[in-house]
C-alpha cells in the first residue's frame, strides 16, 4: 500500500481565524472547488454560497516542529452573489465552479473565480503597515481645522496587525450563454480561457469588455445537439495548445495558431467502445467530467464515471493507462441513473511528479493510483474514522458475498457523501479533499 497519508488535520465547519479569537463558521455551504496555488503556500476553496476561503501554510517553526505546515485561514471573501436573469426569468447561481491561481508576480496574490456566467479576477494582498501622521486629518480620520495646524510633518509607516484584503480587479461578464464549467490560465500569463457547454472564449486579463470565441460547437439547429463540452485546459507550457473534453468521451487538442476559430482539432482522442460492455448507459458513463494535463505536459488524464484514463499526447487511438475507480458500481448503473448520481462530475489530479493520480468516489472515499508501481489505495475522509495525526487506514469495498470485517459492502455505500473535488500540493505530498462541506488536509508524516 502507498504509505502516503500519515498525518491528518481536519478543518471542519469551524475554524479559528488568525486575527480573531472567536470561531467563525467557514463552511456552512458545500465546497465546490479546491485549488493550491503554484507554490502550494496557499489553498483556495470556493463554495456553493459564492464564498472563497483561502488557507495559508504556516511557516516552519523550530519551536513547534509538529505544527509544520498547517494550513490556517488567510482570507475570506464573497466572490459571487446570486443574480437573476430578468430576460430569461432564471436564477444565476452564485456557486463557485472553479478557482484558478495566477502565478505570483509581486507581493499580491491573484486568482480567477467563476460561477456559471461570470469570471472575476481577485487580488489578495496583505497590509501590515499603515501611514500615521497626516497633516489634514487626525488619527481617527476626522478632518482637522486648517487654522489649527501650525507645522507640517511627513506621514510615516508604522506596523499594524496583519490585514488581508481581497479586492475584485476585473469582472469578465456577459460572454457565456451557457454554464461555465472550466477556466484555465495560459502559460503566457496574459490570457486565459473560459469554457461553457458549447463554447470556449479566450480573454486577455486586461480587457473585460470583449473576448475571442475560439471553440463553438453549437449546432445551427439545436435539435441536432448531441454533445457538449465538459472541461477544458491550456497546455502547461505551450501557450497555443489546449484540450477540451466532451460528453461523448472524446478529447480534442487544438492549436490556436492554426486558425482563429479552433473548431477543427489538431488531435482527437477517443477510445473505441468495448462492444461487450455496451448498454444504454454506455454513453453517459463515458462522458468525461474532468481533463488535466500532467505537469510535464506530455500526458493528459481524463475522468469518466467509472475510470481514470491517462493518454499520451502522441497516441490518439487509446489511452496508455486505465484505472478502475469504482467498478463495483457497474452493476448499479440503473439505480444510479434514477437517483442522478450517474451525472456526478468527479475531478482528478496529478501529484507534483506525475507519478500518482487521485480522484474521489462515494461514501467519502477517495482513491490514489501509483502509475509506476500500479498499486492503488482507497482512503476515507471522515471525522469518525480519522483523528489528528493518525495514519489513515486503507478501505476496501467488498463486491462478493463474503464480507470481511473491515470491508464495506456496495449496498452500504452512502451515495450522498461524494468527493468530487480534490487538490494536490504542487511539490509535496499534501492533499486537500473536499467532502461536502468539510475540508480535509492530509500530508506525509515527516521523519
Amino acid at each position, binding site marked *: 500500500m502507498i504509505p502516503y497519508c500519515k498525518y491528518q488535520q481536519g478543518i471542519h465547519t469551524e475554524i479559528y481565524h488568525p486575527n480573531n479569537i472567536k470561531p467563525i463558521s467557514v463552511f456552512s455551504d458545500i465546497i465546490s472547488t479546491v485549488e493550491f496555488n503554484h507554490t502550494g503556500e496557499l489553498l483556495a476553496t470556493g463554495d456553493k454560497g459564492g464564498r472563497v476561503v483561502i488557507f495559508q501554510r504556516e511557516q516552519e517553526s523550530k519551536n513547534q516542529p509538529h505544527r509544520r505546515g498547517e494550513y490556517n485561514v488567510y482570507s475570506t471573501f464573497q466572490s459571487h452573489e446570486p443574480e437573476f436573469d430578468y430576460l430569461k426569468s432564471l436564477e444565476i447561481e452564485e456557486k463557485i465552479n472553479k478557482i484558478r491561481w495566477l502565478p505570483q508576480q509581486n507581493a499580491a496574490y491573484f486568482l480567477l473565480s467563476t460561477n456559471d456566467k461570470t469570471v472575476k479576477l481577485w487580488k489578495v494582498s496583505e497590509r501590515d503597515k499603515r501611514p500615521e501622521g497626516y497633516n489634514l486629518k487626525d488619527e481617527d480620520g476626522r478632518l482637522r481645522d486648517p487654522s489649527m495646524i501650525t507645522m507640517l510633518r511627513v506621514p510615516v509607516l508604522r506596523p499594524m496587525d496583519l490585514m488581508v484584503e481581497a479586492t475584485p480587479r476585473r469582472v469578465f461578464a456577459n460572454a457565456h450563454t451557457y454554464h461555465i464549467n472550466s477556466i484555465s490560465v495560459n502559460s503566457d500569463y496574459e490570457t486565459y480561457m473560459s469554457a461553457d457547454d458549447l463554447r470556449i472564449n479566450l480573454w486577455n486579463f486586461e480587457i473585460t469588455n470583449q473576448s475571442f470565441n475560439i471553440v463553438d460547437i453549437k449546432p445551427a439547429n*439545436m435539435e441536432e445537439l448531441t454533445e457538449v463540452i465538459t472541461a477544458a485546459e491550456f497546455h502547461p507550457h505551450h501557450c497555443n495548445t489546449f484540450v477540451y473534453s466532451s460528453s461523448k468521451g472524446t478529447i480534442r487538442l487544438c492549436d490556436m495558431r492554426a486558425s482563429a476559430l479552433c473548431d477543427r482539432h489538431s488531435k482527437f482522442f477517443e477510445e473505441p467502445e468495448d462492444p461487450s460492455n455496451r448498454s444504454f448507459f454506455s454513453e453517459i458513463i463515458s462522458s468525461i467530467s474532468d481533463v488535466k494535463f500532467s505537469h510535464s505536459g506530455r500526458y493528459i488524464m481524463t475522468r469518466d464515471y467509472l475510470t481514470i484514463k491517462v493518454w499520451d499526447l502522441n497516441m490518439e487511438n487509446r489511452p496508455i493507462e486505465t484505472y478502475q475507480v469504482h467498478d463495483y458500481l457497474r452493476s448499479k448503473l440503473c439505480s*444510479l*441513473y*434514477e437517483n442522478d448520481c450517474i451525472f456526478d462530475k468527479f475531478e482528478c489530479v496529478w501529484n507534483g511528479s506525475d507519478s500518482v493520480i487521485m480522484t474521489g468516489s462515494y461514501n467519502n472515499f477517495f482513491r490514489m493510483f501509483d502509475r509506476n508501481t500500479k498499486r492503488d489505495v482507497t482512503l476515507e475522509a471522515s471525522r469518525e474514522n480519522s483523528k489528528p495525526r493518525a495514519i489513515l487506514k486503507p478501505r476496501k469495498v467488498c463486491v462478493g458475498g463474503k464480507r470481511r470485517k473491515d470491508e464495506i459492502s*456496495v*449496498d452500504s455505500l452512502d451515495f450522498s457523501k461524494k468527493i468530487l473535488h480534490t487538490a494536490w500540493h504542487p511539490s509535496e505530498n499534501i492533499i486537500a479533499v473536499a467532502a461536502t462541506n468539510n475540508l480535509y488536509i492530509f500530508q506525509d508524516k515527516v521523519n
Partner: protein
Amino acid sequence: MGEEEGLHQTQLLDTMFVRGLKRKCFDGEEDIEGTLAGFKAIPSYNLQRQSLLDMSLVKLQLCHMLVEPNLCRSVLIANTVRQIQEEMTQDGTWQMINTQSAGQTSLDRLVSTDILCRSSKEQAEGKLVPVYSTFTKDCEGTSQDNSEIMSTVTSPQVPKNLQSNMWEMENPQENRGSFQKSLDQIFETLENKSPNTVEDLFSEVDNSYYDLDTVLTGMMSNTKMGHCDLETFPSQTSTNSNSNCKSDLNELDHIVEILVES
C-alpha cells in the same frame, strides 16, 4: 435447452445491464430455474427498456424551473431516449407495442418498474422512487387506460422536438412558452393517440398539465391540448384533432351532452 435460452437471455440483458446482473440471474442452477428465468427474461427486457424510457422522459420533464437546467445532463438523457427508441424501432417492438391489445394488464409492468428502480435497497432515497410509487397507487384502478399510456407511441421525431424546445434558452420570453410547449408535447406523447374508445370520452377533462400523476394515469385525453404548436408537432400527430383543439372540446361537450341526455 436451458443453456441456449441462457445465451439468448444473456444477449438481451447484456445490452442493458452489466455482467453483475446477468450473473445474478443465470449463474447457479440452470435447469428448471434457468428455463423459468428464461421465460421471464424475454418480456422483462422489454419492460425494463420501457421503464428506462419512461424514467428518462420523466427526468427530462422534472427540470428545476428556477435555475437553468443542466445542459449536459439533459443532452445525455435525451441521447439515451433516442437510443432506446432506435432500438425499439429496429427490433420491431415499436409496432408490437402499438398493436398490443389491452389484454395484458399494465400492472405487471408497473410492478416490474418498481423492482427495476429499486435494485438495491439504498437506492430507496432516490428521488424518483416516490414518483413511481404514486404511479403504482394511482394506476391501480384504471388498468385500461394504463395499458395505453405505457405504450408510448412516440415517433423518432419526438426527441428532436424535445430538444429544440429544451435547449433554446437563448431567446427571451418565448423560451418559457416553448418550454411549456415541449412539456405539452411530452405529455402528448405519453397519452393515448386514438381517442376512439368510449372510456376516453368519459375520462375526466383535467387541465393540470404539470401534474405528473394525472398525466401518467391517463386522465387527460388528447383533445385538451390548449397550447398547440402546429409547426413543432411531429407529422404523426398532425392528423389528430390537435389542429383544432377548441373545436374538439366543444365537440366533446356536445357528445357528452347527447350521451347524458340519452
